[in-house]
């Protein structure tokens, strides 16, 4: 049983790319090339993992050859492999997007290095099989994100970045506390081992409900769940657009993934309490996100509140914890990563082109940017879930599962939120692209070839993802299985022992 290096590639490629860039020094062009190459390599390695997992089942490797549960294991099931692939695609396109948008000063001061370190942490959190190791990877990507949110040192970045850092430091401290409780209860930190131990234990579980609440506090803060989303709209407003693309598409989703993982593996006994609590908070998250999305005409703010709505919808599926619900939640998770990246990129293009963030001051842009405009329209429909675009299938399964479990109010709130999403995004489209023409002389003559390439590529990925839902169904069925049937995830540990 030797350490297999291939499942570690999604962690190692960005890590070593970052280190090489640090050694290259302040040479932005070299940084661009290295970042793009490592993005491509990430896509290749992640796709290889998807194929391999599809053919052979979950890949497990033990770092330093210490057998689980004593050493740290890296477990790549289909869920992790698909998330790694999506992360890789978003990373590559965001790097391309950054070429013309982030600005040469930030590029000189190690912007790409921090992006790569953040991707290291995100990929690590997706693929690790050890809960303490997940904490460490959380800190890796959070530290890189602290630098990214403040890099450039404008006033709003420093002000909002400080709040972001304090909120995350406090929730990270609670993460350590939750790990301490979990370790004292179960005596192990390997996620599969914890699951096996709890399945085989027939005493009093009530302490696990307490641990569940502490874990939910931690991950809800990272994911932006009601009532702990208060930091998200302000902090995500501050950084420049490419950073916002990465934050909006990836960081909250890692929190959602961690909630799904821990709630499926650890908190299996008292689901009447833990999962009901999760469902209740998810519904309130959707409602608060809808209120926020309707109340702003600022393009960035509207889409930031749409992140909060999406987090709520995914968690409704997670709270159902059955086959249909998990399938929908997982499909919606991947869909939302792609479509949020696409929308942030398109909005970023509008902001760079016009210098305005408020949609009320735009108008008639369809005359000079027809193709971009219609791409924005397609992205808006995909976000709201109009068939056959990608948002539809995830919501279909989530709503179906909610009705099957008798949660009619949850299903109705999810359906009603689709209308709010559609209204908020399409009203942005109408204000910016139709209506009275703005003064086209105020447009900034920015070079936008690569910005548009990345944005439109992202929309095309989203369209393809929706149209290929039929082909991808077996993959998502495998991915959802490790959540609703945790023994399929944790069986490797029994094979070791």
């Amino acid at each position, binding site marked *: 049983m030797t350490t297999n290096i291939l499942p570690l590639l999604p962690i190692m490629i960005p890590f070593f790319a970052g280190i090489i860039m640090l050694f290259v020094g302040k040479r932005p062009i070299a940084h661009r090339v290295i970042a793009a190459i490592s993005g491509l390599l990430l896509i290749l390695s992640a796709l290889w993992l998807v194929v391999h997992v599809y053919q052979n089942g979950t890949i497990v490797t033990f770092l330093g050859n210490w057998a689980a549960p004593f050493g740290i294991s890296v477990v790549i099931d289909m869920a992790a492999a698909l998330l790694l692939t999506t992360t890789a695609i978003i990373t590559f396109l965001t790097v391309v997007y950054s070429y013309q948008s982030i600005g040469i000063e930030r590029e000189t001061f190690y912007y790409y290095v921090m992006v790569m370190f953040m991707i290291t942490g995100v990929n690590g959190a997706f693929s690790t099989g050890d809960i303490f190791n997940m904490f460490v990877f959380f*800190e890796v990507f959070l530290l890189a994100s602290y630098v990214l949110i403040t890099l450039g040192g*404008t*006033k709003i970045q420093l002000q909002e970045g*400080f*709040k972001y850092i304090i909120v995350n*430091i406090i929730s990270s401290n609670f993460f*350590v506390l939750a790990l*301490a409780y979990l370790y004292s209860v179960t005596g192990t930190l390997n996620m599969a081992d914890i699951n096996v131990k709890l399945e085989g234990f027939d005493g009093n579980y009530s302490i696990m409900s307490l641990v569940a609440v502490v874990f939910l506090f931690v991950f809800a803060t990272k994911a932006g769940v009601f009532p702990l989303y208060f930091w998200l709209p302000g902090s995500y*407003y501050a950084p420049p657009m490419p950073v916002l693309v990465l934050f909006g598409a990836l960081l909250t989703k890692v929190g959602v993934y961690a909630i799904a993982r821990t709630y499926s593996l650890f908190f299996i006994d008292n689901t009447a309490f833990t999962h009901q609590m999760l469902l209740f908070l998810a519904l309130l998250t959707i409602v608060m996100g809808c209120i926020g999305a309707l109340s702003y005409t600022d393009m960035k703010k509207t889409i930031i509140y749409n992140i909060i709505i999406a987090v709520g919808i995914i968690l409704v599926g997670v709270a159902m914890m059955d086959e249909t619900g998990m399938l929908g939640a997982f499909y919606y998770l991947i869909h939302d990563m792609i479509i949020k990246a696409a929308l942030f990129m398109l909005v970023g293009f509008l902001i760079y082109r016009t210098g305005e963030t408020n949609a009320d001051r735009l108008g008639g842009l369809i005359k000079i940017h027809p193709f971009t405009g219609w791409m924005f329209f397609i992205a808006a429909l995909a976000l709201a879930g109009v068939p056959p675009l990608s948002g539809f299938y995830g919501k279909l399964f989530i709503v179906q599962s909610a009705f099957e479990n008798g949660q009619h109010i949850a299903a109705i709130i999810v359906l009603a939120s689709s209308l709010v999403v559609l209204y908020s995004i399409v009203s942005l489209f109408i204000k910016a692209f139709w209506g009275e023409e703005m003064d086209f002389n105020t447009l900034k003559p920015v070079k936008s070839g690569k910005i548009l390439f990345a944005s439109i590529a992202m929309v095309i990925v989203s369209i393809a993802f929706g149209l290929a839902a039929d082909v991808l169904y077996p993959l998502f069925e495998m991915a959802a299985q490790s959540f609703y049937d945790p023994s399929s995830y944790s069986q490797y540990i029994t094979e070791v022992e």
Partner: protein
Amino acid sequence: MEIVIIILAGILIGAAVYLMLSKSLIRIIIGTAIMSHGVHLMLLTMGRLKRGSIPVLDEEVSNYSDPLPQALILTAIVIAFALTAYTLVLALRSYRELDTDNVEEMKGVPHDD
């Protein structure tokens, strides 16, 4: 022994909360540092404190200490150290840039000069 350490952790977290509720940046940062100390003490306590033996697992050894919480706490301390260092630098920079260390004044959308 455990109960003393748990009370100590509680006192530390209480002090941390008091500091974090104040309005000065430096006090908030010191508050987060103290909070991490309290949490680390809890983590150490969870592995049982005094068993009076060495952390070695062998076939002949029946009584041994659990080395894992100590390994975990070491990792967590290093992370907390790095975070405190970074936030201190950031606080200095924001003090210079925003001309205030009072969080009451850090509201709204400031404009660059």
